[in-house]
Each structure stands twice: as structure tokens, then as C-alpha cells.
């Protein structure tokens, strides 16, 4: 996922916003995400969020996380959108196993994938160098935006930058046969985690299932190349970053079809001389009618991607 926009919200304003939400909170809830780990293979679990946008109603639980119980410890893939999510994920893991956390992975630098880091042992937090850099430089801005969107669900959440660096390769972690495959395109670094023992691919936000892809840091040609790499993996199942787990490659193909349409629409619009306001009015093809939030994500993507396409068209 991406943030809608990076802004530095002054603390005073933030407090004001949060206090404005107070009446809602009174009747709201217990801030329980009701995370329910689902066993998708032997010793492999996924927690599937909604395919919505961030909101106070969902508390930011619009993201998938997962974990693998190895012979000597647990490998966690993404920590969710808030400190509360991280704590509740840790508690959910404890209902399955009492083994220690061996490795906690942030697949990429988007806030719904790392803002739960606080709950996990600091020396287990790991990511690629690019993702570590992204969290370090952009994390605070993302965090402020998440407070704005999710309200009090975020209270106490702070950016924790992983210290451990992950590199490409197949290694044994906690006795489990894992492979780290650093790809890119959704962001500058999207880490795919393959669990060879079960044939499960944790595909990060390179795959969105029935939820429109987000593009604030996207490089679409690289993303399409990453999808080709993913599709060639002889996997039994794919866990997307957003949307349901899949046992076939349909979500890969659907994500690719959307991204190809998006890139083509933007390039052709710029070449045809359309203004950005005209691009924003472009209809979404029926082919993506089953993709949640396609209309709003398309408009956000126009904001992200159209300026570069316009410049290319003007400089031709």
C-alpha cells in the first residue's frame, strides 16, 4: 500500500484532530483488530486485512501479514499498520506456538507493513538495505499520515527502523528452508519471501488481489518485470500484500493487466495532449470492475504518474 500523501502534520494540529475524534472513540471500540491467523499450509499462517483504504473504521487493518513456524522459531512477514496491530499479531502468534520470534521481515517501506515493528524483538527486525533506507528517511512522514487517517488506533505507534539487512538467497532460518527474492516496482525494493517447505510465496505488494494496486512509489516497467519473475515460480500458493491468498496466478495476471492499462492510459493521454483534470475523469474499464477502489486508486495514480508522462510528451 501507499500513503495518500506525505505531509508533516504539526503536533498541535494532530492533537486537535485526535481530540475531535474523541466523541467517536467513546462509543467506538476496544481497538481490537480481531486478527485471526489462518493456516494456509503446514506451519504457515496468513492474516488477511480488508481491501479498503485506511480509515478509523478499519484502524488501518487493510494489509496482510503472515508467519511461518519453523523448527526452532517463528518468521514474521510484515508487522501491520500500528503498534496495536504489532502487539495483537504477536499475541495471535502466541496462540499458535510458544516458539520465539526468530526473524521479523518488513517486505517494503510502506507504513502498513512496518508500523507494528515496536511489538517485536528489535534484534529480529530485518529488511533490504533500500527498505531500511526508505523507512529511515520517509517513515516519520508516513507515520504522521497514518495518524491522520486511522486516528487513535495509531496511539503509541513509532517508527522502528530494522537493524538487520537481508540479502538475496536461499537460507535456512529457524530450521526452515526460505528464499529471499528482492524485486522492485511497487517500491524501490519489494522483498518476496518463498517458503520452499510449503511452496508458499509471500509476494508483498507486488500482487494485489481484487484491490487496485497503489503507486505512490511505483516504477511500472520494473513492477511488470517482477510479476513475470513471480509467475515463473512453481508455487503452490501466493500471499498478496492486499487481498485474498490465491492458489493460482490469476491475481498476478490481473495485477499485470491493470498496471499495463494504467501505464498505457497515462502515456496515451499525455501523447494526446490531455490535461490532468481530463485524465482524472477517465472511466475505468469493466475488466477492473471487480477490483476494489479502482476508481480512486486510478485518480491517485494519475497524480503520481502523469507529470512524468506529460514531460516526456512535451519534450518528445
Amino acid at each position: 500500500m501507499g500513503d495518500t500523501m506525505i505531509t508533516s502534520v504539526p503536533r498541535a494540529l494532530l492533537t486537535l484532530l485526535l481530540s475531535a475524534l474523541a466523541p467517536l472513540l467513546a462509543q467506538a471500540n476496544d481497538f481490537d483488530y480481531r486478527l485471526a491467523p489462518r493456516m494456509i499450509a503446514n506451519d504457515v499462517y496468513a492474516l488477511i486485512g480488508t481491501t479498503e483504504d485506511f480509515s478509523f473504521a478499519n484502524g488501518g487493518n487493510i494489509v496482510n501479514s503472515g508467519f511461518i513456524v519453523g523448527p526452532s522459531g517463528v518468521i514474521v512477514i510484515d508487522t501491520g499498520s500500528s503498534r496495536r496491530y504489532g502487539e495483537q499479531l504477536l499475541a495471535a502468534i502466541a496462540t499458535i506456538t510458544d516458539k520465539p520470534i526468530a526473524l521479523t521481515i518488513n517486505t517494503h517501506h510502506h507504513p502498513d507493513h512496518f508500523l507494528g515493528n515496536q511489538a517485536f524483538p528489535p534484534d529480529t527486525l530485518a529488511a533490504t538495505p533500500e527498505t531500511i533506507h526508505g523507512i529511515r528517511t520517509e517513515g516519520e512522514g508516513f507515520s504522521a499520515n497514518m495518524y491522520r487517517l486511522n486516528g487513535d488506533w495509531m496511539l503509541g505507534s513509532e517508527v522502528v527502523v530494522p537493524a538487520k539487512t537481508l540479502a538475496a538467497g536461499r537460507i535456512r532460518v529457524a530450521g526452515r528452508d526460505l528464499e529471499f527474492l528482492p524485486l522492485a516496482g511497487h517500491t524501490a525494493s519489494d522483498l518476496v519471501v518463498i517458503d520452499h517447505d510449503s511452496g508458499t510465496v509471500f509476494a508483498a505488494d507486488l500482487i494485489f488481489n481484487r484491490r487496485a494496486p497503489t503507486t505512490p512509489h511505483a516504477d511500472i516497467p520494473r513492477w511488470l518485470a517482477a510479476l513475470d519473475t513471480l509467475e515463473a515460480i512453481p508455487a503452490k500458493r501466493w500471499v498478496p500484500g492486499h487481498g485474498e491468498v490465491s492458489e493460482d496466478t490469476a491475481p498476478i495476471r490481473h495485477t499485470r493487466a491493470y498496471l499495463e492499462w494504467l501505464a498505457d492510459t497515462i502515456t496515451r493521454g499525455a501523447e494526446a495532449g490531455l490535461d490532468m483534470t481530463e485524465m482524472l475523469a477517465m472511466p475505468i474499464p469493466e475488466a477492473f470492475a471487480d477490483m476494489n477502489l479502482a476508481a480512486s486508486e486510478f485518480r491517485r495514480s494519475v497524480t503520481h504518474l502523469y507529470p512524468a508522462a506529460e514531460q516526456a510528451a512535451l519534450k518528445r
Partner: protein
Amino acid sequence: MIRHATLAALSLALLAGSSAGAANLQTTAGVQTIQSVSDPLDSPRWEDMRKMFFGDAPVIFDERVRVSAPRIAEDSMNVPVTVDASALGDARSVLVFADFNPIIKVLEFQATHARPSLGFRLKLQQSSPVRAAVLGSDGIWRVGGAWITATGGGCTLPSTGSSSPEWQERLNEVNGRIWSRVDGGERVRMRIIHPMDTGLAAGIPVFHIEDLALADSAGRKLIEIQTFEPVSENPSFTIDLPPEATSGGRLHVSGRDNNGNRIDAWVTP
């Protein structure tokens, strides 16, 4: 769900000047009647705006002054807006402002031979109406507008140019292109390299383009634009020329910023 239309068909429709699919875009205010005397956007700042820009002159809200903009600004530094007063018939001079911006006035333009419409981008400091106003020959101001929700910071954030040395070599460089419209007219799009610093970011002085003009190769002025601080960094403009203003040849862009730096470039078809 919106029905699928091919891009080509839509582009043609747009370049033919018809209105875009309104489902994704707001266009002016959703008033029942075409005209009204009370602010359809119900902005608490409207009275101040009225006094500031129109004094005692009569003002009516008129749907024919179209303001097209996203309901939610994804990027407060670059909020796309198109104003179009061509439905009024005799509109030539258009004023654009944003009620809640720290610098309220965005731009003004005089479409001497171009259509009275302009696409541009602005910085929004917070959610605000963005309005276009046209003074008619009857002495009445006609106003259209749209609320844009923004997370803000657009006006007090420094430009990216102010922190990078690259723009200095390219200051006032113009990239532009001319397209044929199906109505026999032309569309001109251009982008000018300029930081457009508002002076509201700490330690960065105000520095923005003040005047721009587009003329044909015979020197006939097609449109003149006076831009203010809220216009986005590296401003881009979309200008439409009716068939009678279309020469088929290259067009001259001229102007200057508040430091006296000149803009002088040709846009070719």
C-alpha cells in the same frame, strides 16, 4: 461502475471541447439552479472574498463558470484545476482564487483570442474552495468554484527546486507542444521551469513568475496570464485556441518573474 469508453474516443471528445465524465471529477458547484446569489460552497470566508475582490459590485454564482478539480487533492503541491468560462459567451478576463490559502489570489488571465479556459496546477495549504470569477460587460461578476479537500502544507513547503541546483541552469526553460483539435482549433500545453517559491517557507524568499503571454508568429496576443505565488512549481498550462485563432504555425511564449528574469521561447506544432 462507469461504462468503458476507449481512450481514443474520450480524447477526441475532450479535445472537441465537450465535458468530461463527471463521475470522477467535480465540476463547479452542485446547485439546482444555474445561478444563485448565496455561496453554493457555503464557505465561511466568502464574505471576505467578496469584499476583497468585488467590493460593492454585484456578484452571482453561475454554473457556466466551470471549475474542474479533484474532490481530494492527492498532492497538495500540485492540485490540477481547469477553469472554463466559454459557456458565458463573451468572457475574456478570468480571475482565480482560493479562499483559505495564505496567498489567496492564484492567477488571472485575459483570453484575447484563446478560448476563456485554462488548465494549471496550484498549491493548497488546506482544504479550500477554488473559484473563478468573470466580470461581464453588464458589470456583474459571475463566479464558479469547487471545494478541494487537501491535507495541506502546499504553500509553506519549499519547492524541490529551491533545494537543488539544477533548476538554476534551466530557469524559465519552456517545453511545449501544439495539438490539433477536432473542432479545427489547437491545444497548447507548456511547462516552464521555475521554483515558484511563495516566500512562506522559512529562509526561502518569494520567487515566482508574474507575467506570461502566448502570441502567434505574427505577434498577435492569444492569451496573457498573471501568475501568483500559489501556482505550482514548474508551472504547466493547457490553453485551447478556437479555429479563428489558429495559425498552424509556431507560437511565442514570453514573460518574466518577480526578479526580472525573462521567459522567451517558441512552441512548435
